[in-house]
């Protein structure tokens, strides 16, 4: 009897185990992973380095652990994204100025730096920012070591936009100060773009039109190319970009955020929206549409457009006795210095950027207005 009971118990147990096994192996869809599921990555790896170039005759390689060994500060800092979203963080790390002191330098000595991330993202930090802000080389954010994509260092510049808060810092380039060239020629961006070959460029949900910057530079036929291009956006945002980066990109001239500098191979943070002004050496490109937003418009004999004098002054065009206006088809006309304020730059019914001068002959109405330059 006892033996039968044990056999029965054994069989029942076997059945239970079999059914449990079946239940567990049934093809139920696996639950979704939540969180990153990975173990916390260390904030730095032994031997990680950050390169500082331009500070001494040769590049300096700084071991990240050396940076971490500097005296750290902890501050609450707010980042503001380009869309205006604000996020507050508690960041900890040494300040850049303390690192510079090791090499006998100070932030105040520098005319500019470029921060470079591992993914190629880079941004120039102006002398104005260097002289007014602390730059924190953060190794801890909100009490946590940096994650894999952010380490070894995240740059934090409190009170400055999030585009300066670069993750995965790999290089700091100390920039030489270059005298600002005097602008000798102002070109209308819309007319210049109309001379180039437009390509489709899908930007989020819409397919817009864009031209290669390289082609625009060829059209400009600059005698010598400067190292950087300086941008001013319609919201006042200013940025310098290395010309070799700019020249590989596109200007999207239709749709949202146009004129927009972008490139399929550049991180989104390096795009420049609503370009109002772009200066390269002695040439400045001005968007008539953005100038109308920034400077406002005036009406001259039912022509509503941007005041010519203000447009060229804001672009930095040097004063001259006379000015030469050129159309895209090569047509040119001269105006006198005192006629500048009589002029308006507007978009005609055919969509062409055009000039109109009150009380001046009709030949000063330049359709497809391309450029203006001073002549003696």
């Amino acid at each position: 009897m006892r033996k039968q009971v044990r056999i029965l118990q054994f069989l029942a147990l076997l059945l239970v185990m079999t059914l449990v096994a079946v239940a567990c192996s049934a093809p139920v869809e696996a639950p979704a992973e939540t969180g990153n599921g990975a173990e916390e990555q260390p904030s730095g790896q032994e031997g990680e380095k950050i390169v500082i170039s331009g500070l001494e005759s040769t590049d300096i390689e700084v071991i990240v652990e050396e940076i971490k060994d500097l005296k750290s500060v902890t501050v609450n800092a707010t980042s503001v994204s380009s869309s205006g979203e604000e996020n507050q963080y508690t960041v900890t790390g040494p300040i850049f100025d303390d690192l510079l002191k090791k090499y006998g330098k100070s932030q105040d000595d520098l005319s500019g730096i470029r921060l470079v991330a591992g993914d190629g993202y880079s941004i120039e930090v102006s002398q104005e920012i260097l002289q007014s802000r602390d730059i924190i080389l953060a190794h801890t954010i909100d009490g946590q070591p940096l994650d894999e994509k952010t380490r070894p260092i995240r740059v934090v510049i409190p009170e400055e936009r999030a585009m300066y808060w670069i993750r995965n810092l790999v290089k700091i380039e100390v920039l030489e100060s270059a005298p600002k060239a005097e602008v000798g020629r102002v070109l209308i961006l819309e007319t210049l773009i109309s001379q180039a070959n437009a390509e489709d460029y899908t930007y989020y949900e819409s397919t817009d039109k864009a031209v290669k910057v390289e082609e625009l530079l060829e059209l400009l036929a600059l005698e010598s190319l400067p190292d950087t291009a300086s941008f001013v956006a319609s919201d006042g945002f200013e940025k310098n970009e290395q010309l070799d980066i700019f020249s590989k990109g596109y200007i999207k001239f239709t749709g949202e955020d146009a004129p927009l500098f972008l490139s399929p191979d550049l991180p989104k943070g390096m795009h420049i929206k609503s370009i109002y002004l772009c200066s390269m050496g002695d040439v400045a490109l001005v968007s008539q549409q953005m100038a109308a937003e920034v400077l406002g418009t005036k009406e001259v004999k039912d022509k509503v457009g941007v005041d010519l004098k203000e447009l060229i002054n804001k672009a930095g065009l040097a004063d001259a006795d006379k000015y030469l206006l050129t159309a895209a088809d090569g047509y040119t006309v001269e105006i006198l210095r005192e006629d500048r304020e009589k002029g308006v730059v507007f978009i005609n019914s055919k969509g062409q950027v055009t000039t109109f001068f009150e009380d001046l002959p009709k030949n000063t109405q330049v359709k497809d207005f391309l450029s203006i330059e001073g002549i003696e």
Partner: protein
Amino acid sequence: MGNGVFVLEGCSIGVTRFIAFIALICLLTACASVQTIPVYVEELSVDGETIRRLGTYEGGGITAVYIIQNGEGGARAVIQAAEAQGFNDTIRILVLTNVQTGLTERVEVLEHNETEDYGGYVTEEWFLGRFVGKDAETSLRLVKMAVKSKEDIVAITGATYTSQAIVDSVNMCLINYRRIIEEVEL
């Protein structure tokens, strides 16, 4: 221990019933597990249609395969759930392929943790719509600027990594679909 054995022997019928009860519960649980159809799959069927799971075609990045059959038993669509590594985390998607036309009819993102201003656009209809009407016979290719051929999918601006993850997982489903069509009598 001896006492334990004694007690078991004394209550052998009760214990056997208890074990049988547990076994029944397990059996029911197992059956229920096999029958579970996720809501997101059920929502894609209409009245009169039945849903059949094809467990043998699951594996790798394909986490679930279902066939929707119409009232006459013919297959209308193959639904596959798949996952791939996005920029931040695993992204889970669903791909519905119309068996009659051989075209993708719907791609949905079931779950993701991508960054709001970048890969977070992955759930937008304007992006997922780019996959609709694609021939299941051809694998898709991610491009960054503009569509130049029918297999091209334009990446979300600034979110190439996330876009690539979606294209990869859709391609995984398309390859699996081709295998199913060839091997299974639908």
